[in-house]
């Protein structure tokens, strides 16, 4: 980008402001220690700002920002001793089996279970997020909050498409299981 610093600054802020809420939410849901969230957001945004001359307009700014923020959160999480578990079991050439991998539905669930899930309390849903490892959580949040496509998630996390689908599927299944377990415990 060869614009003057003033123009580049304005362009950066124009692109950033509409996604500030999503970035902050994503960070707060992904980071292990809530007290680190503000630092992570600040560091990531400044890092992006300094690297903005290397950002290409044809790429998605949203995906680029989420990628930088994810790296920042992962780095902070690592400092806290929580190592990300990258699960790369599914490779792109196994795409045919991906459909199955991405099918996290348990078709044997009774209709009542689906009702339970649909009416799950916010606190149950948020608690179920805790059952996910770092990478499962990142994939799920990039999809749910960042509204990124599978391809963008794959690029943001630098993992194959197969891993995106596999992790997304596992994340949803784990959360469903956690909610149902919690509701069963409450019922008894």
């Amino acid at each position: 980008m060869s614009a003057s610093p003033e123009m580049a600054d304005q362009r950066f802020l124009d692109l950033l402001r509409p996604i500030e809420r999503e970035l902050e939410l994503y960070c707060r849901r992904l980071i292990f220690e809530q007290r680190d969230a503000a630092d992570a957001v600040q560091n990531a945004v400044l890092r992006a700002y300094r690297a903005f001359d290397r950002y290409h307009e044809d790429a998605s700014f949203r995906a680029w920002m989420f990628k930088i923020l994810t790296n920042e959160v992962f780095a902070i999480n690592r400092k806290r001793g929580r190592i990300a578990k990258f699960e790369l079991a599914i490779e792109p050439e196994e795409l045919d089996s991906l459909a199955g991998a991405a099918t996290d539905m348990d078709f044997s669930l009774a209709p009542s279970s689906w009702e339970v899930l649909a009416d799950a309390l916010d606190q149950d849903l948020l608690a179920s997020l805790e059952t996910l490892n770092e990478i499962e959580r990142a994939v799920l949040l990039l999809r749910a909050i960042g509204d990124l496509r599978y391809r963008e998630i794959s690029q943001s996390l630098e993992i194959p498409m197969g891993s995106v689908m596999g992790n997304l599927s596992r994340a949803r299944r784990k959360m469903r299981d956690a909610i149902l377990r919690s509701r069963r415990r409450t019922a008894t």
Partner: protein
Amino acid sequence: MKCAEARKWVRLYLDSELDAKTSAEIEQHLESCAECAGLFEAEEKFDRRLCTTLRQGQRTAALWSVVESRIQSTRGARRLKFRLRVAIAGTAALIVLSIAVFSTRPRTLDLAAAVEECHNAYAHQITSPEFKGPVPEELARKLGDRLDAAAFSFRPSSTQFDSHGARLCHVQAVPVAFILGQYKQVAVSVIVLRKSELEHFPDTKRRLESGHAIACSRAGRYQFAARVVDDHVVCLIGDAPRPQLEELLKTVYKPS
């Protein structure tokens, strides 16, 4: 499409990651299969519930205010860096331009630079003629082989040139006849040296031997012109326009 296949694609379908053809086939199946339609609907409901919950929350104004103020302070440093880069680029361009101008500008001839000091002393009345008319015998005896008395007889024949007299002078240890003259109210010096002494002034020698009848140059604030007359080199230097100096030099002949 059968139930098993439709259920295989459920996630990709709900995340809009399928191609249009497969999506259409699934939609077609869901229209005809109530069981699958129910399962898809349940999954979609859970998905919606999950997204709604995860997306709940407000932007913390204070946090983003701090972020923007940190950008402002970084921005100052960036602007300074940008201006510094512009200044450096400008200076570099200026240096390149100066070098280009300097290298294309004609260099002062070595002989012109050497005689400038003599003329400057005359122009500022620091030096004055030693004699007027023929070379005194005492001086003639001192001349030796490197300069003959005839050198002091070279003069522009223009009527507008007038001489105040002459003196012996040394330019970079080369003996020269120094005639202190005046042309159109301007001090003009005539410097005459043996042609063989050009060995000490290679730039001028090269210029005169490369087909230039007159070698011109600027010497400080003065103009300089030199030409070979017989076995002498006659130079004129003064604060006169170069064409005038050249014309004046052309009126210098070998003394009879």
